[in-house]
């Protein structure tokens, strides 16, 4: 299930809504979102803090249950799946990179990388694994424990883990949020290469225009709706687009971490 047919979407949401709480105090985190994530592309999701980025990602990844609408990963509709099937879906078809605490401290870098496959009881594809490890420059770090690695290295290991099982989709939630700009750029470069050279599909949540500029497509989220999209972004066009929201009165987006 490696590189897919570029024409079919890797995932899509139809009228996706997510409300927290009920009655008067209900918060609508996502409001009838329709979105398609193209296979073999690098998609960035941007938006102010609290706009619903993480919620959208969690719903698309089968981590959270929508309150309305449909979510499809490939040709599977998620709303009818139970915990067991969702777990299997995440294990077999989705890779994750979180902002921090991505790795299990008791396992070596290599064991962390192969963990999803090991859990599934799959034999690792040695050739692919070697290619991923080499692409991410982790050859010398495989036997190290997470606490022996720098923050950037840890995130690279997390990216390697996400790639190792050749998932249909990789979700990254602020993967560079805790890194200095140089290590951040490095990790983003690898995500880019995994799309270009390894044919992966990546969805990344970020609030950093520089990070978003690595993507093929940027979706802008505000108040639980997709309000804009930008193909072939650069840092400047993204920043300019965000300023436009600001002047329109949307919430400020600068440097707030979620």
């Amino acid at each position, binding site marked *: 299930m490696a590189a897919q047919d570029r024409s079919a979407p890797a995932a899509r949401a139809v009228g996706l809504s997510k409300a927290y709480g009920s009655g008067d105090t209900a918060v609508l985190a996502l409001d009838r979102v329709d979105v398609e994530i193209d296979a073999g592309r690098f998609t960035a999701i941007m938006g102010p803090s609290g706009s619903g980025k993480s919620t959208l990602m969690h719903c698309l*990844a089968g981590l959270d249950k929508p309150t309305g609408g449909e979510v499809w990963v490939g040709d599977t509709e998620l709303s009818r799946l139970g915990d067991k099937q969702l777990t299997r879906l995440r294990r077999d078809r989705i890779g994750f990179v*979180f902002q921090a605490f991505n790795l299990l*401290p*008791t396992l070596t870098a290599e064991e962390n990388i192969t963990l*999803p496959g*090991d859990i*599934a*009881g799959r034999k690792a594809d040695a050739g692919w694994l070697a290619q991923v490890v080499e692409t991410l420059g982790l050859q010398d770090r495989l036997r190290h424990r997470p*606490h022996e690695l720098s923050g950037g290295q840890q995130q690279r290991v997390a990216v390697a883990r996400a790639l190792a099982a050749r998932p249909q989709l990789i979700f990254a939630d602020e993967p560079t949020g805790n890194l200095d700009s140089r290590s951040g750029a490095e990790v983003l470069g690898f995500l880019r290469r995994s799309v270009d050279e390894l044919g992966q599909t990546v969805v990344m949540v970020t609030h950093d225009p520089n990070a978003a500029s690595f993507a093929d497509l940027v979706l802008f989220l505000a108040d639980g709706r997709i309000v804009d999209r930008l193909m072939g972004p650069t840092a400047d066009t993204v920043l300019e687009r965000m300023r436009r929201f600001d002047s329109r009165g949307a919430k400020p987006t600068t440097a707030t971490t979620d």
Partner: protein
Amino acid sequence: MLKATFRSFLAHKGRLALSMLAVLLSVAFVAGTLMFTDTIGSTFDELFRSTSPDVSVTAHNDVAGRNDQNFSGTVPTVPESLIPTVRQVPGVASVVGRVQLAGIVLTDANNKSIGAIGGAPTIGINWDLRPNSPVDLTSGSAPHGDGQVVVDADTVHKHHLVLGQQLHVIAATGGFPVTLTGIATFNTTNPGATLVFLDTPTAQTRLLGHAGVFTSIDLTADKGVTHEQLRDRVAPVVGSAYDVKTAEQTAKDAAQTLGAFLSVIKDALLGFAGIAVLVGVSLILNTFSMLVAQRTRELGLMRALGASREQVNRSVLVEAALLGLVGSTLGLLLGVALALGLIKLIAAGGMVLKGSQLAVHWPTIVAAYAVGIIVTTVSAYLPARRASRISPMAALREADTPGRGAPLRVRAVVGLVVLAVATGALVGAATDKNLGQAGLLLGAGVLLSLVGLIVVGPLLARPVIRAIGGWFPRVFGPVGTLSQRNALRNPRRTSATASALMIGLALVASLSIVGSSLAASFDAQIDKTIGADLIVQNSTGLPFPNEVGDTVEATPGVGLAVRGQGTRGALVAADGTQQKTVVVGTSPGLEKVVRIEMRAGTVAAGTAPGHVMIGSNYADAHGLHLGSPVNILFQSGQTGTLTVGGIDVTDTNPGGLGDEPVLATSTLRQYVPGALDDIVFVNVAPGADKAQVKSALTTALAKDPQVQVRDQTDYKKLIRGQIDLLLNLVYGLLALAIIIAILGVVNTLALSVIERTREIGLLRAIGLGRAQLRRMVRLEAVVISLFGAVLGLGLGLGWGLTAQRLLAAKGLQALAIPWATIIAVVVGAAVVGLLAALGPALRASRLDVLDAIAHE
């Protein structure tokens, strides 16, 4: 600050719950034990005071105790003729001749025993109530003449006896039929004894074998005459052949005998409570270590906001003290329940503590709070000190990655030194010839090896857990790897958790080794010495009437019956020094039923009339040879001079002939007329079938339910059963420590799950299923428990081996490792791990993935 502490205590109450339970259980055990034994003590003090006559006159005897039911013919008597003499003493209000004898048997018409054999005694008493008697006749009529009996109400109710019912009394002189004519009720506590009242002539002839004698003469003092005054007046009148005691002295003597017994029970129970407390310490220490680790940031913030080290330290200690206070209070309440439960339990066993208040003395309360509060604060001391060392910077740093403790070098050195000393002590104990010294060394070795192993435990965690869980990854995949690594993450915590289990299991292992070695030694001794085909004996070794032996001899198929008697006496050396001993009597043919290794002479010559067979140790020590005269003081008070006819090799094995003199029954009875058989060895007649003879004997002896017929296999089984019973009792008492240890495993896992919430979220996000997660927690628990079991078994093996070597000189020559018990311990430990993991595993698997990832 105090307010913050209190808040924190309440906030963590869930996490403290298991520590609290450990304190509660330990305190309850301690308090319950004290209240229970105090209650029994005060009940009996009261009983003895009310049942003792103002002044009593008994025969003075150096070697025999009063009512010594294990040996026959021991009843020193007072002649009836003494009564008129003492009646004349001024100040005597009334005189009653008393016959009172324990060790009789009461059976129903079907020869079923009424009253426990080997439990509380059945006591025969003459019906002659003195003023202030502790019993009253509550229905029917007093016994009159041979064949009438009054029984105490508790026994009547327990066995549903009715007036007019036919019963059977078996006394030393033989059995006789009786009719139940009345019921007597205690107006104080019945200590559980079955009381059988006969009229005075019947009691004298049937119980003592002589008319005209009593076991004591009970006097009541006139008003205005104190007990002491009366005693001082009576003593010169009766002379030095008699002991004259006041009620206070009698009660004190009785209380002392009981007190010694009670204090053994109390010490044993408190010992087990102590073990439980020790185990609780590790649980509390672990809890507070984890709480401090989890609160590093919070405590750092307090420091940053200006709290001093002392304040932080104190806040943790105060939290512990609060825990101790609450735990002790609840423990005290549970202790009351426990004591009441124990009293109910012994009531079901026959000892009804009637009308007595539960004795809650202030030392009990002090002890309960002292145990609870001191244990918790001491256990929390190290974590508190660590907390006070947290720098204000900790508030700003990321939470520490667990698994990187301070270097363990100091620990290694200290632990290994302690272990080396412990090993030295144990080897010393195993080889020392001086038993007392060896015992001390064993005690020191046990304690030091325990401490040493607790100290080096964290260092052993890695290699041992690698060995135990090495195959986990292969069988359980990444879940196995993770669980093994998690167990190794914080070796201190793992080893503290496991060492709690280790203590209990080490005791189980070592005691089971001693127990099975004891059984094996008995087996070997039985094989080596007993040549008899069958043995007729009371299961607790009590003597029985001679008609049993007569019945045996008359049973068809019996070839040879050798009847043995045991009495009290002393070997008197040439210089007059006495060595108390059992004086054994035997009918001819002993050498045909028991294999005795002789140094000189023969068994037959030693047990010929007028002769004696003595042990080689005694012979060597006193320069005795064949033909030497030996002086023996018999329990009747007479001294006889006998000729050495045989010298046997002194055998220190359990059940072996020590230095006890053995002589012919006929000779023994010259000095101790009432000596009864306490064993009959049987060889079947040539050509007769052993099994057939055995069943014939069993049938013939059905009317004597106090004796049983056993072959050697039965005999071994009996001894094994007695050892197992004792072991099970001890295991039962150790169960509390083991339960607390299990709570410790639960506690560690529960807190670990909380600590690792974010990790669990991550695992779930990347595809670990709920069942797999549960298995991960379970396997970790199993690994920790097995680690404890391995350490415990290792330690227990060391202790057990040492104890066996030490006791080899006392006859514990066979070493038997109880593999079944050891395998059970290992399997049990794994099961314990699984059980302990139930809650924490469920909790972990129920965590919401997103919440867990976002967990601080």
